[in-house]
């Protein structure tokens, strides 16, 4: 199993500011994934973070809004830039539980509220 730690666990932010969420894994992993769960909605994949290359973003998500870093095989950050109330969500970091099966380990999530 993988232990995934996210910081912060929750935060209240002002409109127009940016916040960086950290994700630390207790083992080396090739890919890390960032998901978002807006209130009452399903989990949606934002991007896949690969070490040594740019993140791959899903349709509807762009690097300027959600810049991602992946400096090594155990750590990644997601920044939510120029926040608006629509960005109020739970942001989840995840890694593969087993290769190419879709079985993922998730962090506990970072709950952001934008005022």
């Amino acid at each position, binding site marked *: 199993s993988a232990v995934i730690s996210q910081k912060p666990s929750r935060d209240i932010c002002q409109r127009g500011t940016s916040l960086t969420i950290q994700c630390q894994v207790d083992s080396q992993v090739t890919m890390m994934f960032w998901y978002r769960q807006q209130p009452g909605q399903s*989990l949606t994949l934002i991007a*896949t973070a690969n070490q040594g290359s740019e993140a791959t973003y899903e349709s509807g998500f762009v690097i300027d809004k959600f810049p991602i870093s992946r400096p090594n095989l155990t750590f990644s950050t997601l920044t939510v830039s120029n926040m608006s109330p629509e960005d109020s969500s739970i942001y989840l970091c995840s890694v593969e539980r087993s290769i190419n099966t879709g079985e993922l380990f998730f962090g506990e999530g970072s709950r952001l509220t934008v005022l």
Partner: protein
Amino acid sequence: DQQVKQNSPSLSVQEGRISILNCDYTNSMFDYFLWYKKYPAEGPTFLISISSIKDKNEDGRFTVFLNKSAKHLSLHIVPSQPGDSAVYFCAASKERDGNNRLAFGKGNQVVVIP
């Protein structure tokens, strides 16, 4: 466009009885299906999965049934226990996309009454 749909957002069931959660999908290209369980303030945890080449997969108290022609799957929990009270997410993927790109449903809240 919601490709994975979970209706009946909440379910209450007596301890010891069966919990049945339903999930429908619209994309016929999906070939791998998963259920995740989520407790409050925790991330989702993988519960059980099924490949499209099967119609049933069982793991202890949890069984997932897949009906490809109806694009429908269900999760059966029997007997239900109070610790099963959680939100359950159905998810689906296409092997060609890499199975780490999942489409999730909105989740079903299950409450097991002792």
